[in-house]
């Protein structure tokens, strides 16, 4: 008889109801808008074929190039964030004096928001900011370096806001690795670099792949800092600006939707490639008992 035991065996019980709120949100706030946008993108405002918006996007260099511009920002930003987070997290793994203080300091940028970060960047790295004043003062340069309102400003901003995420994720992945593995490696004659290279890094790599994906996705949808510390009509005209302008300045919702879809596809492709690489790594337990 297919009774309650039969259902319980397959995980069907009243606890399943806990999924309802999440499901409502996913369907209402994610699945529906995405599908709505998708079908909208196939109904060009000016008429034309089914794929007219996509054809327009790839025919117009001013639109098409935003993919490259955004990738040129998001990929290095994600990579730098991951690479920079590893040594810091590695040093702070386990029990370290002042760990909470340092972690707090490193995570504060999350709470600042893009606007405050941008203001800070302009004040610090701008033509009359401290950084340039110091370099001018010690005679290292003759005229101020241009570090904001261009590519570099946005990249710095992405690093400042993305690093805390990368750091927290890396730290938690590192904490998941049994510390006795490194001790074992040490007693077997491995110095710190080889302990890291042969034991910690291989076990951490899958986590770094995930960290890279998440910080990349964050950076790829950059919008405010591309305006505030970038050159929104030039070298930091990122893809989200193109989508925004189409949809809200030109009131061309279908084209805006099409650009949003292209944006999603690019992210999925990059994330997919990273996950493909990740699948070639060891991904089992990272505890001592294997």
């Amino acid at each position, binding site marked *: 008889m297919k009774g309650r035991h039969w259902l319980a065996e397959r995980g069907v019980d009243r606890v399943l109801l806990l999924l309802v709120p999440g499901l409502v949100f996913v369907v209402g706030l994610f699945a529906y808008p995405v599908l709505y946008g998708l079908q909208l993108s196939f109904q060009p405002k000016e008429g034309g074929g089914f794929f007219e918006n996509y054809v327009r996007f790839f025919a117009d260099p001013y639109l098409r190039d935003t993919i490259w511009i955004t990738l040129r920002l998001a990929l290095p930003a994600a990579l730098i964030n991951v690479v920079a987070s590893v040594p810091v997290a590695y040093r702070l793994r386990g029990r370290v004096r002042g760990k909470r203080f340092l972690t707090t300091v490193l995570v504060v940028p999350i709470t600042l928001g893009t606007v405050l970060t941008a203001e800070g960047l302009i004040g610090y790295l701008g033509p009359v900011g401290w950084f340039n004043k110091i370099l001018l003062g010690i005679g290292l340069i003759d005229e101020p370096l241009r570090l904001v309102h261009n590519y570099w400003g946005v990249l710095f901003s992405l690093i400042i806001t993305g690093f805390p995420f990368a750091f927290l994720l890396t730290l938690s992945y590192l904490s998941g690795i*049994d510390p006795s593995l490194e001790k074992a490696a040490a007693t077997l*004659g491995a110095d710190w670099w080889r302990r890291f290279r042969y034991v910690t890094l291989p076990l951490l790599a899958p986590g770094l792949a995930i960290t890279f994906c998440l910080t990349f996705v964050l950076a790829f949808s950059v919008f405010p800092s591309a305006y505030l510390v970038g050159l929104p009509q030039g070298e930091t005209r990122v893809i989200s600006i193109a989508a925004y302008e189409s949809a809200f300045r030109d009131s061309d919702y279908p084209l805006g939707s099409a650009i949003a879809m292209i944006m999603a596809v690019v992210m999925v492709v990059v994330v997919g490639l990273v996950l493909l690489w990740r699948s070639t790594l060891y991904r*089992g337990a990272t505890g001592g008992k*294997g």
Partner: protein
Amino acid sequence: MSDGFASLRMENVRRVFGEQTALRGLDLSISGGEFVALLGPSGCGKSTALNCLAGLLPLSGGQIFLDERRIDLLPPERRDFGMVFQNYALFPHMSVRRNVGFGLVMRRVARGERERRVEQALRLVRLTDHAHKFPAQLSGGQQQRVAIARAIVVEPRVVLMDEPLSNLDAALRLEMRTEIRRLHQELGLTTVYVTHDQEEALALADRLVVLREGEVQQIGTPEEVYASPANRYVAGFMGYRNVIPAAVSAVAGGGVVVRAAGALLRGVAQGGVGGGVDVVVAVRPSDVAVGEGENALRGVVEIVEYHGREQAVQVRLDDGTAFHVRTGTRLAPGDPVALTVPAQRVLVFAS
């Protein structure tokens, strides 16, 4: 055996964790080829001592010497000590073969020689057929053997073992115990073995070091520690399960008469025991006989556990003390019994 050494000495080694003192001046000398067990309850400092030896914990004081060379300032990777961890600490992303070969790779041993030694070590722990597997695919006992092979393949000066059997089930524990003893007899590697299990320590070691709260209680051969524990704590640890308070009523030579549990008992004084002093008597359950005679205690059987040839019996003595007995005599709860202990098996300690 690798380059022999005469002695490994810990001199006044101290280790403090914040407010807590884990080791209070440990002095210990280990000769080359010896198997020494550090024995004690959890928190006694035995693992701390091992980690200090391995270089995984810095000392708070004292020094460690290998012959005349001071080694306590060397990092673990330069001490050339092999270590077997309680949780094995196998590298989960490496095959058994690569795990075992890791130490040789770190020592830049040439490939041919490395492969030969790995195969030899795997043969020694009987894991040749599992060389290609990953740790997660092995049973606990097999993982343990990999951990041992990995530690000994580099022919370390000293092998350190931190409760290597405590994660195994009872049957496997016995089997691995024999295995460890066999490896020590075959290879003659100096071994320091940490355990809280007195049976394990007695079975394996040439010499026992009993620790309590960071202090050495007794150092001696298994026979010495088993037969004449230095104090009541060592006695309690060595299977003298009955430790009951008593008062000295007469002293004559090595013999002493005490009043304990409402009876007069003759026993052997261990260390200085004067008249009128508070003492404890320690008696092993297996040294107690059921029946009338000299040195008798009286009580009522309370709990009986069946252990095959013997029963483990808890007797409630007349004064209310619980007393443990192992006996072949069949008893049932509620039976009144008389118990006798030979005078030389009643140990009297200062309390």
